[in-house]
């Protein structure tokens, strides 16, 4: 069982999965135990879906911002992504620029990138990316949740003696 870092990030598909109502318990545990840092390009399809359904984007982005740290692309991030893109092309590898930006955002924020298709990001491991499959991540969360639950079990010796008012 791997130990997870404090910061995690998601690609767009994994981000949609983690926000599904059926994964609500995972999401609450995730928000309690980790700092979730996501690229704007990760939340773009989520927001696009909301816009398509006629939802108020200001409200949606505010809610996302309260739950997650959204990283908007800066000039530095874009230039770093282009540098890596050029190195990849020299190796004969063509990734979409969105994927590179999502990977570079995770690298620059020391976050584990969780993806439903981790092989897509493998070329970025050479540049410092730590990537994990979504199913493995869910397994890790389950294990951590079990450990946390065990910690909170009340042991007789840990119960304080009654205090007088």
């Amino acid at each position, binding site marked *: 069982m791997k130990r997870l870092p404090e910061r995690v990030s998601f690609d767009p598909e994994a981000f949609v999965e983690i926000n599904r109502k059926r994964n609500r318990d995972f*999401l609450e545990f995730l*928000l309690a135990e980790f700092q979730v840092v996501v690229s704007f390009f990760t939340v773009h*399809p989520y927001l*696009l*879906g909301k816009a398509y359904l006629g939802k108020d984007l200001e409200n949606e982005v505010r809610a996302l911002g*309260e*739950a997650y740290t959204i990283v908007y692309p800066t000039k530095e991030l874009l230039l770093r992504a282009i540098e890596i893109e050029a190195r990849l092309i020299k190796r004969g590898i063509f*990734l979409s620029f969105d994927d590179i930006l999502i990977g570079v955002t995770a690298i620059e924020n020391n976050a584990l990138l969780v993806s439903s298709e981790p092989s897509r990001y*493998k070329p970025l491991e050479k540049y410092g990316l730590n990537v994990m499959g979504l199913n493995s991540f869910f397994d890790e969360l389950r294990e951590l949740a079990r450990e946390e639950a065990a910690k909170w079990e009340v042991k007789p010796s840990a119960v*304080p003696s009654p205090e007088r008012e």
Partner: protein
Amino acid sequence: MKTIAVDEDTWEAIKKLKVRLEARSYDEVLKKLIQAWHRVELDMKAESVSIDDEEAELMLNLIKNMKKRGGQGNEETP
């Protein structure tokens, strides 16, 4: 151990809570309140970003279509 000052109304409310929560100390009352607050906060955050299956499928389809349109992927040049 630290001491905190509370006004009379808060003191009465916290005494009632101690009984209702079956807490053994005021420290335990505060710990339970803090835990409850964290749970409520997390619940609100998770609720505000949770999506139903219909929304999720729409978003996944949008991702697929954007990829098709981009025509890019992890492809190696010949």
